[in-house]
């Protein structure tokens, strides 16, 4: 029997390196009790940045892997600045006991994402997806002295495992219907045109399998109707974990969605019945996600919960690209994810800084930053303005791509005209709720006796880089379009 592998070892070198580094850190955590644990966060972050360099400059640029690795590195830097809260919530006092794994596990999850970007069959896809989610469960529930963290961990675990069950049942039926785990256009074409034996029942089973697979992918990106976990988990999980979930884990979700959806591209033309069905399903999910995310965010007062709803809303704008499957979807999605990642990471760094020094995660805790920390307040303003889509930021450009992509679909099929008003309304809603934070910083007065925030080193550097990148890439659109 001849065994042919579709993979080469060197595809997974960055992933292996990260797992090795994580194993070393866990060993060091057990064997070297004298070393301060926050050093592990720093080493891990450097490892991620080195991996991201090789992913970007390698033979085949892996854009999604690059975004995920950079995001994981930044989460670890955030954890580096967040040590005070971590120690309080894990060991219950100032000591660092038991905090070591918190800095090693994101590396394992990142390795999962790097494997996921290489996946060309459903087994690889499923196993690397599980590496990410299983690690995320631990990270979400890691602050065991914090009621919210445990609750977030359990809610994430139950809903995440349910979505895994749905996804893997879809994988089983996919295999049963097409006889292979490969995800390619040829397999999909054969299945939709009547299946292996040419009988219509096979196509029905195939559609069920596809629906189950997409449900699993929608859970990861937080698209409606699988978005329910996002606000609760984002609010309860430790802030470094929330950052990981919001950026790296969401990137992984879009990798899955791209590899599942793109084989359907030859069919996604409004001319045929099945093409209309595919386009209409994506449009419906995108519209529902936009509405739920953006309208739900409007009445939030907790900033992490607001960013949770915001991440649902942004996923809706990315979903719009999938309505037009015959455009360069992967490129568009990676552009949008880059803009979203830069702004969201900066926002979470600000949240962590305010939480550490003012002890609150409410939007009101940002009050008066415009007076007391004018430069930091400006950097935070840039990141929220980019999330809202203010012109001259990268967020505006990518949101415009999303609108242009939708208008192009409508030129071919006017039946989708209802999506555009929804996009306009939700983009306007975005201005309302992102500017709540900006209003708190500039229009509300600090309470008596509140000192200016001390900006920690990593936070200062990351906020500056993210804000500068957002403005630079936003004003030089040709550079991004490349």
């Amino acid at each position: 029997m001849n065994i042919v592998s579709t993979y080469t070892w060197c595809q997974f070198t960055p992933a292996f390196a990260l797992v090795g580094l994580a194993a070393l850190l866990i060993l060091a955590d057990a064997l070297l009790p004298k070393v301060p644990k926050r050093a592990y966060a720093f080493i891990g972050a450097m490892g991620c940045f080195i991996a991201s360099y090789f992913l970007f400059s390698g033979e085949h640029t892996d854009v999604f892997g690059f975004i995920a690795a950079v995001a994981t590195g930044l989460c670890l830097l955030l954890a580096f600045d967040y040590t005070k809260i971590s120690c309080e919530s894990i060991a219950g006092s100032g000591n660092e006991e038991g905090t070591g794994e918190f800095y090693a596990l994101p590396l394992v999850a990142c390795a999962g994402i790097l494997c996921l970007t290489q996946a060309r069959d459903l087994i690889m896809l499923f196993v690397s997806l599980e590496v990410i989610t299983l690690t995320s469960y631990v990270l979400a529930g890691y602050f065991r002295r914090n009621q919210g963290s445990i609750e977030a961990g359990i809610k994430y675990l139950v809903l995440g495992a349910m979505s895994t069950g749905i996804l893997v049942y879809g994988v089983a039926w996919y295999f049963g219907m097409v006889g292979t785990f490969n995800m390619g256009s040829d397999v999909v074409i054969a299945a939709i045109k009547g299946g292996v034996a040419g009988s219509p029942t096979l196509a029905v089973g195939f559609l069920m399998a596809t629906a189950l697979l997409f449900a699993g992918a929608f859970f990861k990106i937080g698209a409606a109707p699988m978005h329910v976990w996002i606000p609760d988990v984002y609010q309860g999980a430790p802030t470094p974990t929330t950052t990981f979930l919001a950026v790296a884990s969401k990137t992984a979700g879009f990798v899955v969605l791209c590899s599942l959806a793109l084989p359907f591209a030859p069919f996604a033309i409004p001319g045929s019945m099945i093409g209309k069905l595919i386009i209409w399903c994506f449009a419906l999910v995108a519209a529902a996600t936009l509405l739920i995310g953006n309208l739900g965010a409007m009445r939030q007062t907790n900033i992490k919960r607001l960013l949770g709803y915001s991440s649902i809303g942004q996923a809706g704008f990315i979903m719009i690209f999938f309505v037009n499957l015959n455009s360069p979807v992967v490129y568009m999605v990676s552009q949008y994810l880059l803009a979203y990642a830069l702004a969201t990471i900066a926002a979470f760094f600000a949240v962590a800084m305010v939480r550490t020094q003012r002890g609150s995660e409410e939007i009101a805790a940002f009050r008066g930053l415009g007076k007391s920390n004018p430069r930091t307040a400006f950097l935070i303003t840039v990141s929220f303005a980019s999330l809202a889509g203010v012109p001259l930021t990268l967020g505006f450009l990518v949101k415009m791509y999303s609108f242009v992509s939708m208008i192009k679909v409508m030129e071919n099929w006017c039946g989708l005209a209802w999506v555009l008003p929804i996009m306009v309304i939700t983009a306007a809603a975005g201005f309302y709720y992102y500017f709540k934070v900006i209003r708190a910083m500039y229009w509300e007065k600090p309470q008596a006796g509140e000192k200016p925030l001390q900006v920690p080193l990593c936070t200062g550097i990351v906020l500056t880089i993210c804000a500068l990148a957002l403005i630079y890439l936003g004003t030089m659109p040709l550079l991004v379009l490349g």
Partner: protein
Amino acid sequence: MIPLAHYLILSGILFSIGLAGVLIRKNIIVVFMCLEMMLTAANVALVAFSRAQGTAGVPVYDAQVLSLFITGIAAAEVAIGLALIVAMFRARRTVESTALNTLKD
């Protein structure tokens, strides 16, 4: 020889019971058992399909390999889940999902 359809019906029933249990039951340990049942349903379907797709009595081993992976992942999931349940029980003295009410709109 049991036909393929019977296995698929069994796996469908397992999947439905699991999904319904996750949605209906309040005790988180029972919810966990139901989650495992959903994964088992996929295993049953995979092994049945692996036989059905095979030629000349040799099954397609890809599917059976995946079912091994699923078993391993299910075990890891339970380990993490039980750890979280223990942490929750220490904090709240209950494992009912109705007690998870700190985070809400």
